[in-house]
């Protein structure tokens, strides 16, 4: 069974370590905040100028001056800090953010990522994505393995305009967990009930399968 968006987020949350500073992109990545293990402490960075992003406010307590990078109303937590956009991207480029999670339309077997533009159809802009992928030590991509037509989104080379080159380290899709290595995608885990054959069939890029591939547990 393919994973739900929530399960993709839950699996990614297992990569968090105590004390991590983390940036979560819009879409599935924001759900990772709901699955942070209770026994560790992470600090969420919102690139519009906040360290220590808290949950959504209770109804009636929304503050128009307190939003996240997706323009949603949020709260702060003890230890939060506000700063300007240059400092925000400064700490990102300086490698201070331990883990970045974002979505993708396509990822290549060399770790290139395309997630900002579909020429002629969607040209909304890259926002902070190019800064994040060019600077982050650890990039985890949350994505569907195939598009609505069933075509693979894990490709030998991206066909869409790139957000960054050779930067993705790990992918959690709806059917697999993969690392990006020197020699292509390496299969690490499969979704419950999903076979290695299905993953091979749905991965157009080079896929390395070594030994027994465990199922993800939920």
């Amino acid at each position: 069974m393919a994973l739900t968006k929530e399960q993709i987020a839950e699996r990614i949350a297992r990569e968090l370590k105590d004390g991590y500073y983390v940036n979560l992109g819009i879409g599935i990545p924001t759900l990772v905040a709901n699955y942070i293990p209770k026994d560790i402490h992470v600090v969420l960075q919102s690139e519009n100028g906040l360290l220590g992003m808290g949950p959504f406010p209770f109804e009636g307590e929304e503050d128009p001056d307190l939003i996240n990078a997706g323009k949603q109303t949020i709260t702060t937590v003890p230890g939060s800090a506000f700063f300007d956009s240059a400092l925000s991207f400064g700490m990102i480029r300086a490698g201070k953010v331990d883990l970045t999670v974002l979505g993708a339309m396509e990822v290549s077997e060399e770790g290139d990522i395309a997630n900002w533009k579909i020429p002629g159809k969607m040209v909304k802009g890259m926002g902070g994505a190019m800064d994040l992928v060019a600077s982050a030590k650890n990039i985890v991509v949350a994505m569907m393995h195939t598009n609505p037509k069933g075509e693979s989104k894990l490709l030998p080379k991206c066909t869409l305009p790139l957000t960054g080159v050779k930067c993705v380290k790990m992918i959690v899709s709806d059917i697999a967990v993969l690392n990006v290595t020197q020699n292509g995608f390496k299969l690490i885990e499969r979704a419950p009930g999903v076979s290695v054959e299905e993953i091979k069939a749905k991965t157009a890029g080079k896929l390395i399968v070594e030994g027994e591939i465990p199922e993800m547990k939920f």
Partner: protein
Amino acid sequence: MNKIVSGADEAIRDIPDGALLALGGFGLCGIPENCIAALVRKGVKQLTCISNNAGVDDFGIGLMLKQRQVKKMISSYVGENAEFERQLLSGELEVELIPQGTLATRCMAAGYGMPAIFTPAGVGTEVAEGKEVRNFNGKDYLMEYAFTPDFSIVKAWKGDDHGNLIYHETARNFNPLVAMAGKITIAEVEELVPAGELDPNNIHTPGIYVHRIFQGSSYEKRIEQRTVRKRKKE
């Protein structure tokens, strides 16, 4: 010190057609609402606007787009504005999309007296076209030039008659960088106080960067995505 003006109309009085403007704000958060309304009233046109976003159809810079006052936008994300998309696709509006960090830092560079900066954002993508690439310590960086807008327009929480500014929460965002970059910087503030009332330890933008300041009024502070969580039942 003679920086205080009576309001937005006086603050923007000499902005000409064809000017290069930079505006603070992220989405609708921390935008200079009063000055945008004044620019719409003044009808100044053929503007090039450096601003992270383009507002929504009926608020923020969207109001200027509706009146066809903008020739070109330099932004990082313009997704929330259908009128913008229409003008973009029809060719009425020129758009340059640049990484958010690059936009912030190019404004900052001008305020720090640096003609250019190096950033890895966009290396290997279409953003890199036509730009110089240099390698430092084994990593490629694009050279990006400082922005030097004719006028910078910012929104702050508190300011004094020396032009010192303090911002509020995430309404800070691009405002401090935009404030540093302008040849003329205009600040609208929620609370204008006499010099001496703001603690010098807490100043975010020193007044040397600010040329005109006024007490703003009637802030709508629209929320783009009102998101809440449920209280647990007792």
